């Protein structure tokens, strides 16, 4: 297992270089003036774009530009984002924690519910729970995210005033922004609230997380339920499952130990992609709920042709994907030893 992980880790720099080459190649489609913004870290430098072009050789051979750009990227210098009005690296650090928090609260329910419901549905095929899970899956996937988002907002906020939009209420927000009253440790508001001993802010943040979490869970769990169900159905038809049953193993043991573990391979793939997808931000959900996440910033940057922000966001997303795939690879190997031997 250790050798397997080490091999995968050794591949990471190569993948990283490939990703940077791809992004840099796409950047070459932009004018030198637009690319110059990649080298700006302080807005005052915007006054001297021509000097930046000369200084960084943006009119010199492409390979020299790549090496210089990569050097800066490795130092965490991704340029200036006009959309966020701050350096790209700082923008990522600013907006990502909100998305990470949303992802963490969303991902666990999705996985738990998706796998549980998908398994139950397959095991009890054509029974009530199966019909319910299929209906749930169809319902979750039938409506676009914005329909669910607006619907839930209208009901749970508009009508019942239960779960407001945003990340925090006004009172909590003012406290969190005041360094004399609130110390920021992780930028995850729920965690920081507990670390500060302010339970009411923790609960307030949970109230604000509720609707985005429910919306995303509704849509994403449906997919996971369907994949888990079909994978489980396929596995339950395998000879070794029949053998396990023939040996007289109890049904829960057959399902949980023998069938489900093997059925999880496609579920892990999907989960890894889902996790990375959530971390990259969920534009529609963040917009409807006025949730200050990275997805909305990334989408705005793209619409506004904010080249450094888009490049930085793409690089960040690619890194997330690489690490997400690495985690999935490790999980595969843990679940199915044949993978690491192959």
């Amino acid at each position: 297992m250790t050798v397997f992980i080490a091999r995968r880790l050794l591949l990471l720099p190569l993948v990283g270089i490939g990703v940077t080459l791809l992004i840099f190649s796409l950047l070459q489609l932009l004018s030198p003036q637009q690319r110059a913004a990649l080298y700006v870290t302080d807005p005052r430098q915007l006054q001297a774009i021509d000097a930046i072009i000369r200084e960084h050789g943006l009119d010199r051979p492409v390979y020299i530009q790549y090496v210089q750009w990569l050097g800066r990227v490795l130092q965490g210098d991704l340029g200036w984002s006009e959309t966020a009005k701050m350096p790209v690296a700082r923008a990522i650090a600013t907006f990502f924690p909100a998305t990470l928090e949303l992802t963490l609260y969303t991902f666990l329910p999705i996985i738990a519910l998706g796998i549980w419901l998908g398994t139950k549905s397959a095991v009890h095929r054509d029974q009530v729970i199966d019909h319910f899970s299929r209906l749930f899956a169809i319902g979750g996937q039938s409506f676009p995210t914005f329909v669910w988002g607006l619907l839930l907002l209208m009901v749970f906020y508009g009508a019942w005033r239960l779960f407001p939009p945003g990340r925090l209420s006004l009172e909590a927000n003012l406290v969190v922004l005041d360094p004399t009253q609130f110390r920021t440790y992780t930028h995850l508001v729920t965690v920081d609230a507990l670390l500060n001993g302010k339970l009411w802010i923790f609960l307030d943040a949970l109230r604000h997380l509720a609707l985005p979490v429910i919306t995303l869970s509704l849509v994403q769990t449906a997919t996971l339920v369907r994949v888990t169900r079909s994978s489980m159905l396929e596995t339950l038809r395998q000879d070794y499952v029949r053998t396990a049953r023939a040996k007289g193993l109890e049904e829960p043991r057959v399902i949980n130990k023998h069938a489900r573990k093997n059925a999880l391979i496609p579920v892990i793939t999907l989960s890894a992609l889902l996790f990375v997808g959530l971390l990259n931000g969920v534009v529609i959900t963040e917009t409807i709920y006025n949730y200050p996440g990275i997805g909305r910033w990334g989408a705005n940057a793209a619409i506004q042709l904010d080249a450094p922000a888009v490049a930085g966001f793409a690089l960040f997303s690619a890194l997330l994907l690489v690490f997400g795939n690495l985690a999935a690879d490790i999980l595969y190997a843990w679940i199915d030893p044949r993978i690491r031997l192959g």
Partner: protein
Amino acid sequence: MTKTRWFMLPVLVAALALAFQPGLASGQAVKNPDTFVAVSFGDWDSLDWAWAYDTASFGVIFNIYEPLIFFEGGRMDRFTPMLATAVPTIQNGLLSKDGKTYTFPIRQGVRFHDGTPMTAEDVVYSLRRFLLTDRSGGPSSLLLEPILGLTSTRDDKGNLILKYADLTRAIRAQGNNVIITLKEPFGPFLSILAQWSYVIPKKTAIARGDWDGTAATMRKYNNPKKESMAFFEFANGTGPFKLERWDRAGRQIILVRNDNYWRTPARLRRVVIRQVDEPATRILMLKAGDADADLGVTRRELPQYEGAPGIRIIDDLPTGTSTNPAVFFTFNIDCAGNPDCGSGRLDGAGIPPNFFSDVNVRRGFAYAFDYNTFLQDGFRGKATLAKGVIPRGMFGFNEKQEYFTFDRARAAANFREAWGGQVWERGFKVTVLYNAGNVVRELGARILKDNIEAINPKFKIDIRGITWSSYLAAMDASKLPVFFIGWLADYPDPHNFTFHFMHSDGTFPHVQKFKNEEVDRLVTAAARETDRAKREQMYFELNRKYFELVPSFATVNAIAFRVQRSWVRGWYWNPMFPGTYYYTISKG
């Protein structure tokens, strides 16, 4: 069940839920009684009054900084002293008989938010800095023109022509007085000062790397980049509110009461202005009482507020000070790396940078716009069709002025003429832009797209919304080929419209690269004309020129309205205000 019926299901569920909505309504207790929450779409461009030139930014600025004089209540023609202790008139001796020299006795005992006292020297510095800044297309011409007789501080080659000696002669301190000498008498001068004489502390500015007030460093601080200015995102004024935070992550600006204010401190302790792009979310926030005013609402969303308990709609507010929106063309577009130009050539997949320099193209666009549909759908009929650049109700407006109407045949005829017939033969592809979140301007862009694409299948229009500050930056860089934007008067005089819509140094022509020397001369001459009847005729002539040359075309003059919670007290309307003046407001 059909797909449509499936889609109806959540709507039915929502309707049922809303039917059982608890009765919060009018009896609802005031939420956050000492904090005012305003929601809107779009962000803020800059908090430096010498640079900013948009209503969103000034909606914040004019609550933090104060001018020498201010509008008296809702009046546009009467003023009250603010940082000056008197409004100059010939009668009180503070305005010279030749109408050129204004003396402003500066109020004593006023302190900036950091506690330092405000002096006449700060006033002089602030005004001189404003003139020197003169960023391209910015507001400095408002005072440059009357004070120094200049429309720009730079010549055609970009060289600084502003003389330090002229600055110091025109604006100077004498004891506790500030004396401003105009090049020529200028009727609306006090109107301009009522919004454009904000005072910043000289020492703070210099400490933050801004102009030191000397001749030697003038060039460096002329036409600076937005973010390089000392007060771009920092504020230190004398006004009723202090900037507590520009929270970019939370997309909000928080103001806190200035408890050491020279007048009675404001009743509100805090003002939070939040950027909420989704209209449905803003509407629900106001209905829930989590917001006190929706500053981004358009008439398209107004039905959702009508009859809602706890919500007050104040309609039919006196207007006549805005032309909004108008459609602008950039005559020489910066197409480098600019996808809004498509291929950058007249090949059916794009446009060349000078595409709109042909008046036939511009007329084609103007005749292709369905004004009545826009008026009905965008404003629910609560607007009048614009007749030229000067808004209805303002001096210089001509009821008989010919104006564009929706005429597909004439649009087609103009497109056939354009570029010697090449436009019709090859077609084009261009992007029409608007500021994201403005659903009315978005509707206008869609109307333009639908109608132009219907004229010739080779005509392709994309539409795109950009966040406000980036929109302004792209406009300033001449990157927007066709764009929707509006104009709120800086002072109630037609010159403020003709200059910024037609004069080559005006805000829009400057970025459009539109220059017509005859128009420039006429704009300047009309501003200086003292005979009212002659002046009116000159504005009629300018309106004719506007129709003939089509540097842009105005669509409607809208009727203003406001939506806020019923518990908001003390709000009043002045058509000149760029936003909400929070000083007089309370909740309860």
